[in-house]
C-alpha cells in the first residue's frame, strides 16, 4: 500500500536517477570536443510497480546506466576513407617536393638542354671562337648538373620515404599493441553487462589512427576487434598483436615483413605506409628510370656525334659526356668528359675552321633517341607525367577529404555531442530534480502534519 515513506523513497530514487542523468549530460558537455568521443545517453527506466490488490502503483524511475550512441557502418567507412586519404596525401606530399625540379625555370633540364643546343649552334657560326666553345662547355656542364640535380631530388625523396617506412611500421606496432591491450578489457566489461563505451571510443580512435597508416580490415568478435592488413595478415587477434618487422631488401630499401617473416611490402597499398611504398617503389623508380634513360641515351647520342668529327687539333672527337656503362645511375653521374673548348669535335674534315660536325651534334636535338622520342619530347613527357601524377594525387586528396568530411558529418549526426541538446537536457533534468526535491519537501511537510496530528491529540 502506498505510503508517505514510499513516496519519499520514490522521490529520493528520482533524485538519484536525475543526478546520474545530469552527470551523463555533464560528461557529454565536457567531451563535446574530444576526438572520437561518442555521446552517451542516460538509460532511465520505470521502477517495477507495487501491486496492491487490483491497484498497481508506480515506483518512480531508476537509472539503468548509460549507452554510447554509435554507427559502426559509418565508422568503418571513415576508417576506409582515412586509409585512402592518407595514401593520397603521402603521395601528394612527396610529389609536391619532386615537382619543382621539373618546373620550367632557368636551371631545369629542358632549359639547359635548349641552352646547350643554342651554344652549339652559336659555335657553328665561328667554330674557332674560343668564347663560343667555352659557352658550349658551360652549357654541357649546366645540363649535366641539371640531370644530377633532378636525379638527386628523386633519390633524396626516395631515401626520405624509406625512413618513413620504418617509422610507420614502428607506429603501427605501437598502435596494434594498444588496440590489443584494450580488447580483453572491453570484452570483460561487455561480459559483465557494463558499458565499455569510453574504452570502445579509445579503441575506435586507435583503429582510426592505424587506418591513417595502413590498410586494415576490421572484424568485431566476442573477444574484441580483429584487425588484419589488406592481404589478410593478422595484426590484432583478441589480446594478441602481431608485430610487423622491417629489413633491408636487396635493393637497399626497407621491406615490411609480417610476424612469419613473409615480405608483405608489395601488398601494402593504402594509408601513409601504402602511399609511401607506392611512391618509393613504383612512382619514383619509374620517373628515375626514364630520367636515367634520357640522360644515358642523350649522352650516348652526343658522344656518338662527337666521335664522327674532329677536334681543333684534328684528332677524332672524344666523348663529350662521361656516362656509366649501365643506364641506371646515368642521370646521377653524367658529367663532362671534355674540359677545354678545343676538344669539341666541331670539324668534319680535321680543319679547325670546319663546323661540319656541329650539325651532327645539333641534329641530336631533332633525332629520336632509341627510346623513341627526341630528347626534348622525352623530357616534356617526364614533365607531363610529374604534372599528371601530382594533379591526380591532388584530386584524390581533395576528393577523400570532402568524402571524409561528409562521413564525419554523418557520424557526428549520430555520435556527436550537441551543446544545444545537452543544454536542453540540462534544463529537463534540472526541472526533474527540482520537482523531485519538491516532492521530498512536500512529503516532509506531510510528515510534519502527521506528526503534529499525533502531538495535538496528546495535548
Amino acid at each position: 500500500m502506498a505510503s508517505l515513506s514510499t513516496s519519499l523513497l520514490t522521490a529520493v530514487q528520482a533524485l538519484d536517477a536525475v543526478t546520474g542523468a545530469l552527470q551523463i549530460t555533464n560528461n557529454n558537455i565536457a567531451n563535446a570536443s574530444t576526438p572520437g568521443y561518442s555521446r552517451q545517453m542516460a538509460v532511465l527506466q520505470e521502477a517495477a510497480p507495487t501491486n496492491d490488490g487490483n491497484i498497481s502503483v508506480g515506483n518512480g524511475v531508476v537509472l539503468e546506466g548509460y549507452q554510447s550512441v554509435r554507427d559502426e557502418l559509418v565508422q568503418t567507412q571513415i576508417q576506409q576513407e582515412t586509409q585512402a586519404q592518407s595514401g593520397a596525401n603521402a603521395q601528394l606530399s612527396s610529389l609536391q617536393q619532386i615537382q619543382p625540379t621539373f618546373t620550367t625555370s632557368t636551371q631545369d633540364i629542358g632549359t639547359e638542354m635548349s641552352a646547350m643546343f643554342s651554344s652549339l649552334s652559336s659555335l657553328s657560326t665561328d667554330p674557332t671562337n674560343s668564347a663560343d666553345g667555352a659557352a658550349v662547355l658551360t652549357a654541357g656542364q649546366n645540363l649535366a648538373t641539371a640531370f644530377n640535380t633532378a636525379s638527386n631530388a628523386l633519390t633524396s625523396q626516395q631515401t626520405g620515404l624509406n625512413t618513413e617506412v620504418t617509422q610507420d611500421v614502428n607506429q603501427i606496432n605501437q598502435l596494434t599493441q594498444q588496440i590489443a591491450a584494450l580488447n580483453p578489457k572491453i570484452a570483460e566489461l561487455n561480459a559483465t553487462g557494463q558499458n565499455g563505451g569510453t574504452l570502445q571510443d579509445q579503441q575506435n580512435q586507435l583503429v582510426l589512427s592505424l587506418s591513417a597508416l595502413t590498410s586494415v580490415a576490421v572484424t568485431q568478435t566476442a573477444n574484441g576487434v580483429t584487425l588484419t592488413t589488406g592481404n589478410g595478415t593478422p595484426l590484432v587477434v583478441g589480446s594478441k598483436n602481431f608485430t610487423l618487422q622491417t629489413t633491408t631488401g636487396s635493393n637497399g630499401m626497407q621491406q615490411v615483413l609480417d610476424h612469419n617473416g613473409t615480405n608483405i611490402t608489395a601488398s601494402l597499398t593504402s594509408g601513409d605506409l601504402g602511399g609511401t611504398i607506392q611512391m618509393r617503389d613504383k612512382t619514383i623508380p619509374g620517373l628515375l628510370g626514364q630520367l636515367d634513360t634520357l640522360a644515358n641515351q642523350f649522352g650516348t647520342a652526343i658522344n656518338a656525334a662527337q666521335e664522327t668529327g674532329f677536334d681543333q687539333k684534328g684528332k677524332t672527337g672524344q666523348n663529350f659526356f662521361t656516362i656509366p656503362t649501365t643506364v641506371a645511375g646515368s642521370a646521377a653521374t653524367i658529367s663532362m668528359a671534355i674540359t677545354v673548348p678545343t676538344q669539341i669535335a666541331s670539324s668534319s674534315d680535321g680543319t679547325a675552321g670546319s663546323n661540319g660536325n656541329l650539325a651532327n651534334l645539333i641534329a641530336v636535338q631533332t633525332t629520336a633517341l632509341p627510346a623513341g622520342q627526341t630528347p626534348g619530347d622525352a623530357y616534356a613527357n617526364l614533365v607531363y607525367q610529374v604534372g599528371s601524377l601530382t594533379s591526380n594525387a591532388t584530386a584524390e586528396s581533395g576528393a577523400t577529404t570532402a568524402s571524409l568530411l561528409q562521413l564525419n558529418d554523418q557520424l557526428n549526426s549520430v555520435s556527436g555531442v550537441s551543446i544545444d541538446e545537452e543544454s536542453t537536457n540540462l534544463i529537463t533534468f534540472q526541472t526533474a530534480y527540482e520537482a523531485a526535491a519538491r516532492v521530498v519537501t512536500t512529503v516532509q511537510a506531510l510528515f510534519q502534519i502527521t506528526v503534529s496530528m499525533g502531538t495535538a491529540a496528546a495535548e
Partner: protein
Amino acid sequence: MNAQRRAKMRVTNMVPDAEYAMQQSQQALSVAMQQVSTGLKINQPSDGPAAAANMVTSLAASANVDQYTSNVSSILSQMETADSAISAVVTSLNTAITLGTSGANGTVTTANKQAIAAQVQGVLTSVISLANTIYQGVYVFGGTESTTPPFVAASTTFTSKQGSAAAPLATATALTAGSVTTISDATTGDTFAFKATAGDTVATLATAVNNAVAAGTLSTGTSATINAAGQLAIGTNSSVAGIVVSSNDAVLGSMIAAPGTGVPNAYAYVGNSSVNSVQVGDSLDVAANLPGSQLFTSGPNLIGSLNGLITVLQTGTTLQIGAATTAVSTGLNYVAQQRIPLDNTISQLNDQESYLGQETVTLTTQQTSLVGANMAEAATNLSQAELTNSAVLASAAKVLPQTLLNYLPPA
C-alpha cells in the same frame, strides 16, 4: 552534401564544415591571387600537365628561333664583309684591266710598261689583301682553313726540317701513316694533298707528285727529291712557278721555303674548298663562307692571271699584254658570277631575319595561350574568390558562436 540530406541529419558541430569551407575558399583565393600576380595560369606542371609539357617544347623552339636569329646576324655580318671585299676586288680588277689595256697599246714605251706593271703589282697586292680579309679572327675566304691567311707568297722550293747530311732522309724513308703533305701551286691554282698510308715512303710521295704533274694539278717540273743536304726538297725547278708546301708528318718535320727561292707576285692558295653550313631555320641551312679557291683560283686563276699580266708588262709583247688583260677580264667576270649566290644568300638571310621575328611573335603568342592567364578573367576570379572568402568568414563568425546557452538566463 545536399541540403535535403543535411536537413534530415542531426547537426551537432558545424566547426569542421566551416573549417573546410574556409580552407576551400582560401585555396581558391590563393590560386586566384597567384594567377593575377604572376600573370600565369600554369605555374607548375600539376596546374596543367599537357600545357606544361607543350611549354617545354615551345620554349625549346623559342630558344632555337632566338639562336637562329643570332646566327643570321653573325653570318650576315661575315657575308657582308665578304661581299664588300669582293666588291673592292672587282674595282681593283677593273683598274688592272684598264691598266692592262693601256699597256697593250703599241705606243706605250717600255719604261711606261714597267710603270704600269708596278701599278698592276699594287693592284695584286691589294687583291691579295682583300682575299685575306679577316672578320673577327676568321679568314673569310680560307674555306675551313680559316685561322691562317689563305693566300701566301709562293717559292720555288721547300725543304723538310728533318734530314741532314749526318742523318739523311732517303727515298725509302717511311712516312707516317695518316700524315698529310700539301702542295699548293700558284700557277695552276690547284692544291695537291698526299695522305700517307701504311707502307708509304718518300718514294711513294715522289711518285704521287709526278702523277699530279701529269694530271695538271701541279706545274710542270714539280718534283719531290732528296737533296744534297739529306732533306726532302719539293720544288718546281722553275723560277716563275711558285708553290707552297706544308706537311704534318713528323718524319719530315715542317716544310720550309728555301731561302732566296721566293717567286715575285706568285701567291698560292693554302685554304681549302670546304664550305661551312649554318642552320638559320628548322629546315634552312645557308653556306656561311665562300672559299677563296672557288672565287680566285679554281675557275680562271685570277691571282695567276694578274701575276701573268705583271710578267708580260715587264717582259712581254703587246699581244701578250692584250691576252693577259683578257685573262684578267675573264677572271673579273667569273668573280662577278660567284658574287651572285653570295648576294642571294645575303638577301635570303635578310628575309629569314624577318621570318624569325614573326616566328618569335607566333611562339610567344602560343606560350601565352598555353600558360598565360587571361588577366580580365583572373581579376574577375580574384574578386569572386575574395567575395566568397569574405562570405565564408562572415557566415562562420555569425553561425559558430550560436548556441542555446546564449539565450539561457544565468544560473
